[in-house]
């Protein structure tokens, strides 16, 4: 991060990849990225990091016995069969 304004932009990169920045700051970042290889890598790998977590979130993975015990604990056993 040798450029002086890299640090100043770091806190905005998360909003930037979500597309939630105002147009002024957004173009400031884009302009900066054109000339700063390191920041480009940070933005790309940040985007990839979020993408990987979102795509591998997967199913909830609640085991069936956990569900059964929950319904019993809540005194809802009569609804167990009906809903599953």
């Amino acid at each position, binding site marked *: 991060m040798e450029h002086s304004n890299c640090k100043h932009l*770091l*806190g905005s990169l*998360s909003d930037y990849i979500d597309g939630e920045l105002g147009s002024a700051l957004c173009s400031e970042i884009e302009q900066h990225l054109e000339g700063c290889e390191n920041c480009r890598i940070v933005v790309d790998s940040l985007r990839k990091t979020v993408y990987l977590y979102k795509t591998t979130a997967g199913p*909830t993975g*609640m085991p069936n016995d956990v569900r059964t015990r*929950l319904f019993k604990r*809540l005194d*809802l056993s009569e609804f167990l069969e009906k809903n599953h």
Partner: protein
Amino acid sequence: MDRDKKTTEDFSLAALRSGDRAEFARLVEAYSGVIYRLGMRMLGDPQDAEDVLQETFIKAFRHLGGFDGRSSLSTWLYRIATNEALMMIRRRKHPSVSIDEPVETESETEEPVQIVDWCCLPETEMMSSEARAYMDKAVDQLSPTLRAVFLLRDIEGLSTEETSQVLDLSEAAVKTRLSRARMRLRELLSGYFGERIARQDLAHEEEA
């Protein structure tokens, strides 16, 4: 939040408030999976996750009469569950240990150390079971409050506004914490995948 999940509008608030057990069973059916997942990822332990799950719905049933509908039912359930999980973490640790971020670093984003372009790695390598286990470990390394924001926003898919309601934080604070959580995870993943890139390059050199 699962994309195909039920929304608050799918439930009769009047029935829930009056203690209708069949309607409550439908609510439990719809949200128990995501609440369990949140508990697992917050606490990393199946028994603790199950305790949080049960406590969440016991409290929900008890307090549904007073649910004012200002937030959605799912946000309200996430709020109860997140509080339960954070309380459990607090109980596990020494009572004086703060589970929050140190205040003095609250507004600062740490400077990236790992500048490695690993985005060109094949997806199969990034999605391998080993990589996924590392990704889970990386989330565990976040402080509980950063972890909660990250899980709610990026795993459960809540909006900034919903996350702010769940955690009683301003939307600006949610964004700051999400940014810090993501930047830390990026740092950890860059270290991990960067090593794989280096290995790959070495293998290519040896082949040449």
